[in-house]
């Protein structure tokens, strides 16, 4: 089944590196650090008190004061970014029944959950707030976005750990491609920087311990990497069926042409060492796009900054494209790791890269690692040649996902299909 063509017509973001696209882009190109010691009053555990927080912004344009009281920060960030994406695209101009929203999150209303437990540790089951379930349920932001933007088609929540955001974009892409919806808001939101979560990630060996030099963390693919720094935020893309978008004269950032998702079926938190799962996800995305590895000009990598992820991811990239053959970046050095929202944010950044023909550098990268045989873009942005861009993501539990984006309109036929 061939399906329809799908384009990106709007982006909205709320991140530590900026609450609008241009500020984020400027900070990405500069490799700005956003990791900070967290405000002391929450009682962070030693070594688990660093994060990338979204700067304060006026929430009045996004939610009434009453509705905001019914939202966890996760939903408020998500609704705000989704609304920005709709505005960026010039509105959702199809019937409500033809609209969809797909949201990725790994932790849902984590702050509300933790506050409820902290407030009454002796009475956890005794007297929660009546609002507790709407605040903490994982699907809350999808519901709020559907209400605020009159979305009466599918409204879904995807939760596959760090791959959630990528899979949200991928599932929304398929909905538009195969005619389930004509316009879809696809994204992710996360606000899971809590004392419990940071300590748990620290103890699992995934979090970069706070300490000297937090201004140089995280450092994906670098020899001295020691874990990720958690970020909060949200990112949404507006996906539209191409003919509808062109008919209304929409600005088109890029085309989404492929999506792949696979499972390692190996371990509840560690990636399988061969990198075959991620490689199969990339291969699926390229196959759906009708492209080959030779057509890919850039990969926006998962690149968390953990020892194991970056090693396995580099192996899969080297197997797919050859050693040091393709420019790779991880923007987590600037934004932190947005967990279930990160895939959506980095799909949005990849879309901006395609539109603006620039690859942002990997912040804090200075010492290459022999275990990471890839061409890491660092220090300064690099020009992006015309071609396909992959956004890759892998999550605890062995979830692997990849999205393929191409320029719109295509400047040339794919390299792999040109005559020798």
């Amino acid at each position, binding site marked *: 089944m061939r399906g329809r063509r799908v384009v990106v017509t709007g982006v909205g973001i709320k991140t530590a590196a900026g609450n609008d696209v241009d500020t984020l882009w400027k900070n990405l190109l500069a490799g700005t650090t956003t990791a900070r010691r967290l405000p002391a009053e929450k009682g962070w555990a030693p070594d688990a008190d660093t994060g990338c927080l979204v700067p304060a912004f006026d929430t009045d344009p996004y939610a009434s004061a009453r509705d905001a009281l019914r939202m966890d920060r996760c939903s408020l960030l998500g609704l705000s970014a989704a609304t920005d994406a709709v505005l960026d695209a010039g509105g959702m101009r199809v019937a409500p029944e033809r609209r969809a929203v797909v949201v990725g999150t790994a932790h849902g209303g984590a702050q509300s959950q933790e506050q409820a437990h902290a407030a009454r540790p002796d009475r956890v089951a005794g007297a929660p*707030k*009546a609002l507790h379930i709407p605040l903490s349920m994982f699907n809350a932001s999808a519901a709020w976005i559907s209400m605020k933007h009159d979305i009466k088609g599918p409204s879904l929540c995807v939760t596959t750990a760090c791959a959630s955001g990528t899979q949200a974009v991928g599932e929304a892409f398929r909905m538009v491609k195969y005619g389930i919806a004509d316009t879809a808001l696809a994204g992710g939101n996360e606000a899971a920087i809590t004392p419990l979560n940071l300590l748990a990630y620290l103890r699992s060996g995934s979090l970069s311990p706070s300490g000297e030099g937090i201004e140089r963390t995280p450092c994906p693919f670098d020899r001295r990497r020691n874990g990720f720094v958690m970020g909060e935020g949200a990112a949404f893309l507006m996906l539209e069926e191409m003919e509808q978008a062109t008919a209304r004269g929409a600005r088109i950032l890029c085309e989404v042409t492929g999506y792949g998702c696979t499972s390692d079926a190996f371990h509840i938190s560690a990636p399988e060492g061969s990198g075959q799962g991620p490689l199969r996800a990339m291969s699926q995305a390229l196959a759906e796009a009708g492209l080959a590895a030779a057509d890919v000009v850039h990969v926006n990598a998962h690149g968390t900054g953990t020892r194991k992820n970056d090693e396995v991811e580099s192996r899969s990239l080297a197997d797919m494209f050859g050693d040091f053959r393709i420019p790779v970046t991880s923007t987590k050095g600037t934004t932190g790791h947005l967990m279930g929202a990160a895939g959506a944010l980095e799909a949005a950044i990849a879309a901006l890269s395609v539109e603006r023909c620039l690859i942002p550098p990997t912040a804090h990268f200075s010492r290459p690692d022999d275990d990471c045989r890839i061409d890491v873009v660092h220090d300064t942005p690099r020009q992006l040649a015309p071609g396909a861009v992959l956004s890759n993501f892998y999550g605890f539990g062995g979830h692997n996902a990849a999205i393929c984006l191409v320029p719109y309109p295509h400047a040339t036929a794919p390299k792999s299909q040109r005559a020798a």
Partner: protein
Amino acid sequence: MSTVDELATDVAGAVGAVIARQVDADTAFADLHMDSLDYAEINVSLSEAYAVRLPEGAVREAGCVRELVRMIRAQVEARA
């Protein structure tokens, strides 16, 4: 115990905090477009604050802060 007026001010504050609006002792709840979640949250909030047990539906039936204050005082005085 607080005076009736002090209690009314406190209860109005608690109700207002739930719905993000200013409320006084005689504001009719019916005019505030509150839904079932608002009523439930106000019930939880007042029950916690004054250690009383308001039956389900009590807040909606009370209709305004002044009547809620009467219900709360009745329980507190009975307990004393």
